[in-house]
């Protein structure tokens, strides 16, 4: 019989203030209060009511009955519970110190920092999380789980360097091939625990699906499926909000979990913790050249980094390290959820839902860029080289350069000098000509970006290649000073 290892993801982002307007900025000295949405408290209280509190009480019961489970809780959620539901945080402390539980490590901000080229920031956030967990819960996580299970070869060295014994990731079919996820694997020598996504999703996604031919899912039936695995340990990893928030109490989700330990026991499926699962030997070393994750059917990072808005926002936040005067704000902006809100599946035969979600994706993007630009604006005053820093900053949605032609915008946008250079290389010829004729480029560089020198020089530019040459030279000069 296989063992079973159940783990939960607990995370709430700080959503950004959708009504943020740069005009308010002079009135406020504490930017955090105007960057973050008032709804965060409301949402946290609602989820705590429906899920965090009752689910945690249930978990304590199960742990007392010798069931085992692991928990990965983000720093942004710990902060919010501390502010608004400290009683629930106390319950989680009981869980943490329970002999049958284990706490896992992740990035404090549930962030996309692991995807940055430079891994320093990623490591800093994991360390920040480690000290938070040890200070708040008095335990020291030894197994790591990256944001939404994003993982690739690229992260192995950093994770090993921080001393973790193993890392969780998704049991992606294209990586595993013929292999079962229910064994221990490794990547460049780092032990890998693979999530059994089919069984995990049976609970997390299909539990309430009435069109599913296995509906309704009972603890009895599910335990039977688990027991049929020919592997050594079935790893379930489920969003904690499944219990009570995604599936309301009325669906029977609490009863499902209440009966699960007994049903598993009846079939001789033993619950173990992730650390205990490491006693099995590594079956194979896997090569994971591109990022994988547990998101969508694609199981890659396209949920956060697919369309041009997401890429633009990602570039902006990665680069913001050179501007940041307040790492807390910079890190809040790295939370993966912001990028998820910008996801879009444009233009599929006028599907109404798709159409509206695109609109809100654009709004999410606008808010994000406005806030990051305001943040950098505030920081520039204290920068070492305020003038060069200012020229290289990100600008807001209203200040951005939108490449256009007679017929309107082409959809290429530039929120910084760097991005401008990138877009000048890819924008269509007729748009470049259109702007050269109207002197738009030099006007923007002068009035918005604030580089008179460059603006003046650019007035002489006759074609794309002149612009690229002039801007690239100036850009490199400026960065050299900053880096």
């Amino acid at each position, binding site marked *: 019989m296989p063992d079973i290892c159940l783990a939960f993801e607990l995370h709430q982002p700080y959503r950004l203030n959708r009504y943020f307007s740069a005009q308010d900025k002079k009135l406020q000295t504490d930017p955090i209060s105007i960057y973050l949405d008032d709804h965060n408290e409301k949402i946290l209280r609602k989820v705590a009511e429906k899920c965090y509190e009752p689910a945690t009480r249930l978990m304590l019961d199960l742990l007392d009955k010798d069931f085992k489970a692991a928990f990965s809780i983000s720093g942004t959620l710990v902060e919010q519970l501390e502010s608004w539901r400290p009683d629930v945080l106390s319950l989680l402390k009981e869980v943490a110190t329970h002999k049958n539980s284990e706490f896992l490590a992740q990035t404090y901000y549930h962030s996309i920092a692991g995807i940055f080229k430079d891994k320093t920031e990623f490591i800093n956030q994991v360390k920040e999380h480690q000290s938070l967990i040890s200070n708040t819960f008095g335990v020291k996580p030894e197994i790591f789980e990256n944001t939404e299970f994003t993982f690739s070869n690229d992260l192995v060295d950093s994770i090993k360097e921080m001393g973790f014994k193993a890392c969780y990731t998704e049991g992606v079919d294209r990586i595993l091939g013929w292999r079962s996820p229910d064994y221990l694997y490794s990547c460049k020598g780092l032990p890998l625990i693979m999530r059994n996504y089919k069984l995990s999703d049976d609970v997390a996604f299909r539990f309430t699906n009435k069109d599913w031919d296995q509906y309704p899912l009972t603890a009895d039936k599910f335990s039977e499926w688990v027991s049929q695995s020919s592997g050594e340990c079935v790893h379930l990893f489920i969003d904690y909000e499944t219990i009570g928030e995604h599936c309301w109490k009325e669906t029977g989700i609490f009863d499902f979990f209440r009966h699960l330990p007994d049903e598993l026991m009846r079939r001789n499926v033993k619950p173990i913790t992730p650390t205990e699962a490491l006693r099995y030997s590594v079956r194979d070393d896997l090569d994971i050249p591109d990022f994988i994750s547990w998101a969508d059917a*694609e199981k*890659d990072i*396209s949920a956060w980094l*697919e*369309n*041009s*808005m997401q890429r*633009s926002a990602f570039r902006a936040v990665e680069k913001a390290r050179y501007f940041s005067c307040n790492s807390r704000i910079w890190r809040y902006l790295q939370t993966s959820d912001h990028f998820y809100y910008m996801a879009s*599946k*444009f*233009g*599929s*035969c*006028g*599907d*109404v839902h*798709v*159409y509206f979600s*695109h*609109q809100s994706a*654009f709004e999410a*993007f606008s808010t994000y860029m406005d806030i990051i630009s305001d943040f950098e604006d505030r920081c520039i005053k204290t920068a070492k080289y305020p003038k060069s820093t200012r020229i290289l900053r990100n600008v807001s949605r209203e200040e951005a350069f939108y490449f*256009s*032609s*007679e*017929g*309107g*915008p*082409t*959809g*290429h*946008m530039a929120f910084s000098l760097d991005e401008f250079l*990138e877009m000048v290389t*890819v*924008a*269509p*010829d*007729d*748009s470049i000509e259109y702007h050269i004729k109207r002197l738009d480029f030099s006007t923007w560089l002068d009035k918005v970006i604030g580089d008179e020198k460059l603006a003046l020089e650019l007035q002489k530019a006759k*074609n*794309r*290649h002149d612009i*690229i*040459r002039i801007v690239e030279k100036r850009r490199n000069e400026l960065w050299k000073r900053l880096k």
Partner: protein
Amino acid sequence: METLKIAIFSWESLYSDRVGGLASAATYMAQTLAKRHEVHFFTRGDKDFNLFNVQYHVWRPYGRNIIEYCNDLSHGLVARFRDFDNPPFDIIHFNDWHVIEAMHLLKERNTVFSFHSTEYGRNGGYFGDWWEFKDISGKEWYGALIAKRVTAVSKTLCNEIVNLYNVPQWKTDVIPNGVVPEQFDVAIDPGDIKRRYGIHPFTPLILYIGRMAYQKGPDLFIDALPAIRAHRDDVRAICAGTGGMLQHLQNSSYGLPVQFTGFISDSEYIRLLNASDIVVIPSRNEPFGIVLLEAWSARKGVVASAVGGLSENISHLEDGVLVEPSPQGIAWGVNEIINNPDMISSIGRKGRKKTDRLFHWKKISEQMVEVYKKAMQ
């Protein structure tokens, strides 16, 4: 990896004289190679320049006809080439027939010749009996004969060359075209663009983009429209581009839900591409089919004829729909997906992923370096 000194010959580039698709193919190849190698680009123009690490050396040719013009270009560029040949170039890469005379002058060196199309193909798959046709075909035959290695942008084109010019198979490699997805993947509200064409944002829009020429099959698409409308009555179509068949198509589409834009700018192309729900590529013959990569860059669902490069690159019902190049075939393909937005979105996104995996210039240039190495042996 060792650094190669590479010379690229092409009669057009993106930053000097630009005529068609060869300009972007040759320029992006050079730019990408230049990240790791020393790259000199010999082309038409008035003043040398450096851009993205590529050194452009130019010549302004003169000629009373295209053949003379290209001969003058070849001789001029080789003269320029000699100025930079110390230390000698490791590899000299020629694109299309215009610069074959230059390859002739350097035929003892390590040469690679790339076919982006053939004169026979450009002529619609027929042999022409006028002198330019014969002269250019003769040059293509000779180029393939003297080059150390020959590349073609698809298996189909490669077979065509092997058959037309008796090129031995062992000498050839297929190196596809690449694309810069950021040119086509933009943030634009499809509804805004549709409204400008008098189309409701929720109405499905099918786009044809290309020359209005027999080879490209716009007539097949127009003839498919009645059967598509019978399946989805609010469907709208836009045919963008110009060409000899335009007038005829406009006359024969009376009463059908289609608009003809005539010539459109690159900007308008990007707008229409992003506004559309389905892109059709109904070609009768297609050595590569760059529109496919452009549509995939914008994550569009593609319905394409199962011919040439299109059938080689699309996985049917996975990242596109392959159909017989006929009105019935195209109607079937469109109807298969038009009422299934999830399917359209899914094949479009998978197409984009394939583009990122296989058709980025970085990948393509790595394959080209392998060809260079073979030519140097």
